[in-house]
């Protein structure tokens, strides 16, 4: 059974300035222990898709199934990590993780320990008492990952979680995520527009076409696990990268031509 199934989903936004079709019909499903990267240019509807899976937006048509059941709102079976740092600045690192565990039937003590455990997983237990503003960007995203993992969702949705990090920190985070995932295995939908990041992290890369977003390609990545820093400079990665680069460039060229045409016309 699929962890997530996206059935005939489309999305059209209606705003004061008009209607925007963000997604054309999308049909795809994800296995329970699969790490999938979703790749596409800016504005192609990646976030929209992820928000629909998370239940934060309603699809215009179609629906989402999680573990075989249709869902229509957000729920604890799906955790999410956002691009911008979404730690609550008024809480400490520890409290931020515990926030996700409130309302759950567990003792204070248990909640504290469980939060601490997940902070340990991302190497942040030393900073439990710090406030987010005292942390660097990479540290913040590590805490955000700990928070999303702490309540053990079946599906982890990540929307460009490393997009705002500098290249070096980003690599560190990729290694960390690979390590954690290889230990804990779950269904991950990882949105990015960095080709190298997509290839190096995942078992499968989905390429979306530009707006209205549709699935343009669905590529299995056969790089053996466990992966490490050397994966980044491996020949396999380079091969996939060239292939994806080609796919993406077609998209970009289309967009460029369309833009100029529209301008001229």
């Amino acid at each position: 059974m699929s962890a997530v199934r996206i059935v005939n989903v489309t999305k059209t936004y209606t705003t004061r300035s008009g209607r925007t079709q963000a997604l054309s019909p999308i049909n795809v499903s994800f296995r329970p222990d699969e790490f999938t990267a979703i790749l596409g240019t800016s504005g192609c509807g990646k976030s929209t898709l992820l928000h629909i899976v998370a239940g934060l937006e309603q699809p215009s048509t179609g629906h989402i199934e999680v573990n075989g059941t249709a869902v229509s709102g957000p729920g604890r079976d799906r955790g999410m990590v956002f691009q911008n740092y979404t730690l609550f600045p008024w809480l400490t690192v520890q409290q931020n993780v515990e926030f996700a565990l409130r309302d759950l039937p567990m003792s204070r003590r248990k909640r504290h320990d469980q939060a601490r455990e997940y902070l340990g997983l991302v190497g942040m237990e030393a900073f439990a008492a710090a406030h987010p503003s005292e942390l660097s960007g990479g540290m913040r995203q590590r805490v955000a990952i700990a928070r999303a993992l702490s309540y053990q969702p079946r599906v982890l949705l990540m929307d460009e979680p490393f997009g705002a990090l500098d290249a070096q920190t980003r690599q560190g985070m990729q290694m960390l995520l690979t390590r954690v995932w290889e230990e804990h295995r779950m269904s991950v939908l990882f949105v990015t527009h960095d080709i190298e990041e997509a290839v190096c992290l995942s078992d499968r890369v989905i390429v979306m076409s530009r707006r209205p977003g549709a699935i343009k390609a669905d590529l299995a990545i056969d790089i053996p696990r466990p992966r490490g820093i050397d994966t980044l400079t491996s020949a396999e990665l380079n091969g996939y990268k060239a292939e994806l680069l080609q796919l993406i460039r077609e998209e970009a060229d289309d967009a460029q031509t369309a833009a100029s045409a529209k301008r001229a016309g």
Partner: protein
Amino acid sequence: MSLGHATPATGELSTARRAVQPVRRHQLFHQPSRTAFWIWGSAVMAALGIVWFGVTALEFANPYFLPSPGAVWTAGYEMASTGQLWADTSESMRRIVIGFLISTALALPIGLLMGSVGRFEAALEPFIDFVRYMPAVAFVPLTIVWFGVDEGQKYSIIFIGTFFQQALMIMDNVKRTPLDYVRVGETLGLGTTKLLRRIVLPSSGPAIWDTLRISFGWAWTWLVVAELVAARDGLGQRIVVSQRYFDTDRIFFLIGLIGVIGLVLDQLFKIAGRALFRWSSTERG
């Protein structure tokens, strides 16, 4: 800060923050040091004081137009020595605080709802926008008719002058809650009330505090109007009485006193805000 070295975070965020408080070679947008601030600020105040003193000492101005610093000081000293000044100040303070608290107690929930629930905004904004242009002074006779001549009437003037601005400003503060914070709450399955209490309110806390600070300052503006009617004590009433007896010395002293009290309370609000919202560095100053 023990984690100082970890702060610069990502280029982007820190650039944005720095843009507000830059340290620069060029004279433009160079944030003066705390010392420079004190020196320049006091210099200007002192200069104004000296000009004032000089003009009055040389009798350029009719003392009725512009009393001398000495006369103003004496007037203040006299009022203070009878205990009247203290009674007035504490009475006015009490009125402002109560009027302000009533206003805040209403503006906070209303502003919170208007800022977060579109339908509330749609329903109330036009009305509040309409009322807030109405001059509070013009409401004096109506408040007497509605609330009589006791303290209630005084609170009502301060309320009318404060509430509508407060509600709109708090609405604005709440609107600036980063949507992603709310999204995090939603993915955790929180309902509307919990989202408001656990996320929206704390997130907009510093901005709301700033709104309270500013609107508390405005409340002072309405004091004189509030104390026009049926007040026996109070700085505003004292100004009105001094006006009647053409006692410019006292008027000067009292207006100055209100300025100083306003300044001091503003600083206290700022200090309390920094203590309450240690996590936030968005506050100016």
